């Protein structure tokens, strides 16, 4: 590993190239279970973001003091403690959202993306890069949750940002956007199959964009070579 840390590369990794939800396909259980609406997705996404960032920070700080043999149990202990702290805080300050998300908050512990980042990145890197890595990985996960939540809420109940007061207090009660008034509801989108379908489409979309970018880069790289060849050929003929 080089001395200069490429923060752009780390961020790009977390948000896109190595996105925990779309590429690594980790943490699918909460991803599929709670994304019925934007507010649920945002609540769980923020909780995950906080856990992964703080666990990366702590793991990076203690990385030299922990021997290889007890590395994993120590990391799991840190993650479990952080998750429980977040759970207590949510119970105290966003009580209704806490009751809606229920078991999926403690289940953040089992999100492999978090232990994966602690072990693969934070235990080998300094504090700042690890923090950035945690932040962007968490943000990448949060954004995917949000996208799925928004699509499912829009298709399923015809609204966006309903019940945001669960997270942001009474002032957010009016944030609901009724996109389709008198929408009869589309059941599949709210039920678990809808989560699989939307997640599948998102992954496909990412792959389409990626291959598009790749093709454009290839043509850009190929062109000057072709051109120079043609010059040489014409030169040979005349």
């Amino acid at each position, binding site marked *: 590993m080089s001395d200069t840390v490429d923060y752009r590369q780390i961020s790009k990794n977390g948000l896109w190239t190595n996105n925990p939800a779309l590429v690594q396909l980790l943490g699918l259980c909460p991803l599929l279970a709670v994304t019925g609406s934007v507010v649920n997705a945002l609540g769980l996404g923020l909780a995950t973001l906080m856990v992964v960032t703080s666990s990366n920070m702590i793991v990076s700080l203690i990385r030299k003091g922990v*021997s290889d043999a007890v590395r994993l149990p120590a990391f799991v202990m840190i993650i479990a403690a952080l998750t429980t702290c977040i759970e207590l805080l949510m119970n105290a300050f966003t009580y209704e959202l806490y009751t809606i998300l229920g078991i999926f908050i403690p289940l953040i512990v089992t999100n492999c993306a978090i232990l994966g980042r602690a072990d693969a990145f934070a235990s080998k890197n300094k504090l700042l890069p690890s923090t950035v890595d945690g932040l962007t990985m968490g943000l990448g996960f949060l954004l995917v949750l949000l996208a799925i939540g928004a699509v499912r809420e829009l298709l399923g109940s015809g609204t966006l940002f309903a019940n945001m007061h669960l997270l942001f207090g009474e002032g957010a009660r009016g944030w609901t956007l009724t996109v389709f008034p008198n929408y009869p509801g589309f059941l599949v989108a709210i039920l678990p199959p809808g989560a699989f379908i939307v997640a599948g489409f998102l992954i496909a979309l990412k792959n389409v964009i990626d291959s598009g970018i790749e093709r454009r880069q290839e043509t850009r790289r190929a062109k000057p070579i072709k051109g120079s060849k043609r010059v040489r050929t014409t030169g040979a003929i005349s």
Partner: protein
Amino acid sequence: MLGRSIGKNSLLLACFALVTAGLLAGTYQLTRDQIELAERAAAQAALFEIIPQEQHTNDLLEDTLVIPQEGWAQLGLNFGGLIHRARQNDQVTAVIIPSVAPDGYSGAIRMLVGVNREGTVSGVRVLNHRETPGLGDKVDLSRSDWILSFDGRALGDPPAERWAVRRDGGDFDQFTGATITPRAVINQVRRTLEYVEENRELLFPESAENGNVSTRETTPSN
């Protein structure tokens, strides 16, 4: 050599456990009061929805009555529960009874049923259910106002045989695509009203003087 490394590692893990436990204990101490407040506010909000604050003068949360065990089956309760009483000038004007419909589409539907002294429903709210989103979950007030159709109804209004969904020849609407859920809720509300009727003396003692304790003694034990 091996023993030393085991000892060192376990010591290290023990330190970790201590530190994380300390962190948790600290967070718990900091959030405990707030959690209690939030839980109390949520419980109170559910009660106030059924009996508005201006309609009673006592503390709904504190003024409770333990449900005698013979009533558990009728109310669908496995582990008993508390009846909340609303009073005006010491007279009980309404009660809020926890009630569970055991036969929802996907399991039990937990609700609160408020009943006025004259036997009419002051309100019904579903607390907790696992009905199909988009179909059966319309019993929840946040999804549809169907549950308000109980307000003001009583055992004779509509008559007992019409306490059913329209498809079964009753007076209450079903939802498109879901009849099992409203059927379960209607039946349980009716059973709760019957419970109130049968236990009138316990729930609504005649005057304030022979309230609380003395009523329990005068309830027929034969």
